[in-house]
């Protein structure tokens, strides 16, 4: 090595590999208006489609008069179920093993359901024509409450399932019942409850809401009749799965279908599912031979695609008088709406709700979930969450608080004495998961210290005394949460979507001059994959991140993968990337050995080069190896430098964190002022701290929205009450809190680079932290449970019901 060779640290820094807060490569185009989102696509001859939607939540369709619509200049067709039936496309399978109407087949089951698809030359003509389609409805009784739906005389919603006592997830016990899913040991849990010192019991409702990305769902379908190839661009979080579904539904071979996810304007789970608009656009393109664009408007989006949550969680938690938890029981009534279109791995009809023992060492537990049909939109997607983990975390973190009240204990201390200890990992939970790693006590102590927890409690006590003395009308709430996530779905042996194992993939090509192209089965929706996956490869291969191009989302070029949702990209595709990088390095080592005329084992890896052990001046850089791979005949080696890896994770990863929210509540107005929000995340190895912090800010803000005001509610008639941004709460910069982020780092022992995933943690942990703060403010007045969202009116009502306005 001579004086001109930069030292190791300088070379490593120049790579911008793992651990670097590398600026994002995506930003140059997004900041200059040069992104390419699906609605930006313009094609010669492109036409437009839009839906006529049901005004009613439950009605028989007696007739649809399309004459006036068809008379609008530029209208080409109005498709109905009868037009799709000969193709077998008037119904489609859902991700949950149910089926869903593409267009209303005789009846409608929720407000906003698709009845007819109008196709025309311009958007304006299509909008005009949709208004002119006359639907003759016969109203039917509406059920929006899942408990009423399960009553003996409840209206039959799914007539197509008449007489079917078995569903894809076992027995159906009622005509509006979908499944019962049970985990754990029910008799043992009930025995513990019966003999416990203390049992706290509560119904915890996690209300229905919606991911609501700023870009709605949409697609452009283009059937090329000359070469028989169907190309579809769309807002797909899982493009390969869409290709497989499209092939199974249409009979077109997968080799003749190309699915492309261009830039996606946020997903948050909304864009995982397959929606009627995609099917209708494909059919319309096949019929007309022209590209067909379908883009939702905001009302379509909020009313019809992909709600989240809507879980009624009845809990019982048992403990000793000293506060050691001895058992947990939960029965959940899950409102799935009109069709079971939940986006969960096949064997998990309630997702990973069974992570509901949380961060605690609970010896025995039981979870039962009943899925129920109602006259509400289908969906049940994981809104910034890994398959119902948010519901599970909210449930256990509320139950802990409720137990603390019952025990008259400090809720921070109650958590501490029940945490799974560091030496217990890998930890087998009572509901069947093997937690890979964790250090909860360290994180918790760090968090409590950072916010000066003791000081906050003292201040709260003073405030309470002042309130009772009539000196203030403000109360202070301290919201605690210690969450454990379960992400990175998942091991193929028990995780699949429509039969496709939930592995993921990476394919790398190193070019002769030492730069690289890597393609993955995932697709970024804002997570910055083009930036971070290049960092993983930079560290693994010694090629600077700036010389690595990352491509995703085109099924003609990317290797098969299950896509991006449930915080699975880094745990699964990130692992594939690292392992593909190691394959590159292994071959490069053989090349280097040949060039240096030494044995492979005589070389050691040094940031970006192979060095002959003990002879530092003799080395070959990765760049030199790449060139040699293409210009030298190396005995025993194929030319070229490429690798592919399909990664089947051996286990899930278990990120965790400690969040603490402090708020001041005006008892007379119900206004909650978030004074501070501290978020400590442990996502294992950190690839790009800047991006992690951004994910935490964003996820916590979605949590703030959900906890403090965002909902999709229905009236008794089944009218959707929150179908525009006038009444669906998305926080602005003005009310959004300021966040303080922190971290500990406990690498995953089974992941190639120790990374666990972070995108959803702040939503999973944030919702209980905000909600617990509201509850905590009123704890001394006897409040145990009040359902979210905690908007001003509901907080005012809590105060009112507790007699604080008298």
């Amino acid at each position, binding site marked *: 090595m001579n004086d001109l060779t930069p030292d190791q640290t300088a070379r490593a820094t120049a790579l911008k590999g793992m651990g670097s807060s590398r*600026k*994002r490569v*995506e*930003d*140059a*185009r*997004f*900041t*200059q*208006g*040069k*992104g390419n*989102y699906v*609605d*930006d696509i*313009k094609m010669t001859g492109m036409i437009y489609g839009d839906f006529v939607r049901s005004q009613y939540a439950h009605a028989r369709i007696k007739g649809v008069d399309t004459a006036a619509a068809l008379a609008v200049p530029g209208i080409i067709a109005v498709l109905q179920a009868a037009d799709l039936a000969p193709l077998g496309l008037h119904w489609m399978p859902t991700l949950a093993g149910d089926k869903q109407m593409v267009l209303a087949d005789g009846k409608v089951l929720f407000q906003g359901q698709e009845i007819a698809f109008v196709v025309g030359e311009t*958007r*304006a003509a299509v909008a005009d024509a949709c208004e002119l389609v006359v639907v003759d409805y016969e109203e039917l009784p509406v059920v929006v409450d899942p408990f009423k739906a399960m009553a003996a005389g409840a209206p039959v919603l799914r007539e197509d399932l008449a007489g079917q006592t078995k569903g894809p997830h076992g027995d159906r016990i009622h005509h509006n019942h979908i499944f019962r899913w049970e985990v754990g040991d029910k008799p043992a849990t009930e025995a513990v409850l019966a003999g416990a010192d203390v049992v706290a019991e509560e119904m915890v409702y996690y209300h229905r809401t919606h991911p*609501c*990305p*700023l*870009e*709605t769902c949409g697609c452009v379908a283009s059937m090329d009749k000359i070469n028989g190839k169907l190309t579809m661009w769309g807002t797909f979080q899982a493009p390969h799965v869409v290709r497989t579904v499209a092939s199974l539904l249409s009979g077109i071979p997968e080799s003749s279908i190309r699915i492309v996810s261009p*830039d*996606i*304007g*946020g997903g*948050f789970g909304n864009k995982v599912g397959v929606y009627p608009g995609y099917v209708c656009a494909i059919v319309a393109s096949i019929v007309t031979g022209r590209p067909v664009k379908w883009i939702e*408007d*905001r*009302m379509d989006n909020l009313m019809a695609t992909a709600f989240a949550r809507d879980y009624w969680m009845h809990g019982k938690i048992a403990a000793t008088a000293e506060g050691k938890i001895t058992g947990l029981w939960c029965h959940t009534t899950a409102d799935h709406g009109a069709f079971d279109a939940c986006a969960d791995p096949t064997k998990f009809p309630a997702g990973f709700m069974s992570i509901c023992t949380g961060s605690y060492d609970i010896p025995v537990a039981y979870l039962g979930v009943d899925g129920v049909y109602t006259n509400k939109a289908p969906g049940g997607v994981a809104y910034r969450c890994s398959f119902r983990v948010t519901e599970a975390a909210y449930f256990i973190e509320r139950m802990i608080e409720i137990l603390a009240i019952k025990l008259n204990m400090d809720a921070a201390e109650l958590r501490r004495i029940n945490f799974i200890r560091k030496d217990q990992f890998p930890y087998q939970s009572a509901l069947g998961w093997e937690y890979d790693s964790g250090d909860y006590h360290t994180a918790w102590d760090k968090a409590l210290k950072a916010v000066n927890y003791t000081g906050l409690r003292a201040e709260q006590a003073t405030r309470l005394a002042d309130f009772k003395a009539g000196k203030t009308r403000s109360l202070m709430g301290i919201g605690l949460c210690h969450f454990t996530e379960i992400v990175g779905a998942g091991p193929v042996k028990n995780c699949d979507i429509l039969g496709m194992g939930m592995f993921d993939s990476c394919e790398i090509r190193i070019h002769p001059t030492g730069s690289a192209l890597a393609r993955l089965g995932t697709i970024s*929706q*804002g*997570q*910055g994959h083009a930036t971070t996956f290049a960092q993983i490869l930079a560290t693994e291969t010694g090629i600077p991140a700036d010389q690595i191009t990352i491509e995703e989302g085109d099924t003609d070029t990317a290797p098969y993968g299950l896509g991006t949702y449930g915080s699975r990209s880094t745990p699964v595709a990130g692992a594939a990337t690292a392992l593909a990088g190691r394959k590159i390095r292994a071959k490069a080592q053989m090349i280097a050995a040949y060039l240096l005329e030494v044995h492979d084992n005589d070389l050691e890896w040094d940031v970006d080069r192979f060095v002959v052990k003990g002879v530092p001046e003799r080395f070959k850089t990765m760049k030199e190896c790449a060139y040699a791979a293409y210009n030298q005949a190396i005995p025993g080696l194929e030319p070229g430098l490429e690798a592919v890896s399909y990664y089947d994770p051996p286990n899930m990863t278990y990120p965790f964190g400690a969040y603490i929210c402090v708020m001041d509540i005006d008892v007379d107005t119900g206004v909650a002022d978030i004074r501070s929000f501290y978020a400590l995340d442990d996502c294992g190895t950190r690839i790009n701290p*800047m*991006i992690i*912090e*951004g994910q935490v*800010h*964003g*996820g*916590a*803000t*979605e949590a703030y929205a959900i906890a403090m005001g965002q909902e999709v509610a229905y009236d008794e008639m089944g009218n959707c009450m929150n179908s*525009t*941004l*006038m009444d669906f709460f*998305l926080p*602005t*910069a*003005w009310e*959004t809190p*300021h*966040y303080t982020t922190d971290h500990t780092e406990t690498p995953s022992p089974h992941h190639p680079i120790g990374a666990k995933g972070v995108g959803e943690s702040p939503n999973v942990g944030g919702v209980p932290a905000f909600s617990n703060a509201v509850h905590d403010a009123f704890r001394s007045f006897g409040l145990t449970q009040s359902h979210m969202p905690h908007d001003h009116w509901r907080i005012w009502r809590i105060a009112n019901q507790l007699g604080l306005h008298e």
Partner: protein
Amino acid sequence: MKKMHIELTVNGQPMETLAEPRELLVHVLRERLGLTGTHIGCETSHCGVCTVDMNGKSVKSCTVFAAQANGATITTIEGIAGADGMHILQSSFREHHGLQCGYCTPGMITRAWRLLQENPSPTEEEVRFGMAGNLCRCTGYQNIVKAILHAASEMSAKEAAE
């Protein structure tokens, strides 16, 4: 519906097109003039992803009729960068990680561009209030606010130096 002749000055260039009077400015910009940097996110003028600058004011182009915009001077995200490259706001959004999916970003930057002309050295509170018409689902605003405050000080420093 009979089309009308619309003339606009967009990003310094005179442009003309035929459009139905009921067409929205955002549709004219995106579909007729090919300026797809301006996005659509709602129909109720809440989200702000369609924000453009019209005659010196920020407007939500989904609630302006093409007919109302006739004769106007418009700046869109495509007109923010100068001949010498990205505007300070654009580089500051990148530097401070003020964007993720990028969908709100053009509206955010176009609004911030006007905000900093209205108030060249805003406080954090003034930035948060002045940007409240633009929603973001990804960032939680913290880094957007940081990016705008940083751009403001950098722009002031640059002006003082000139």
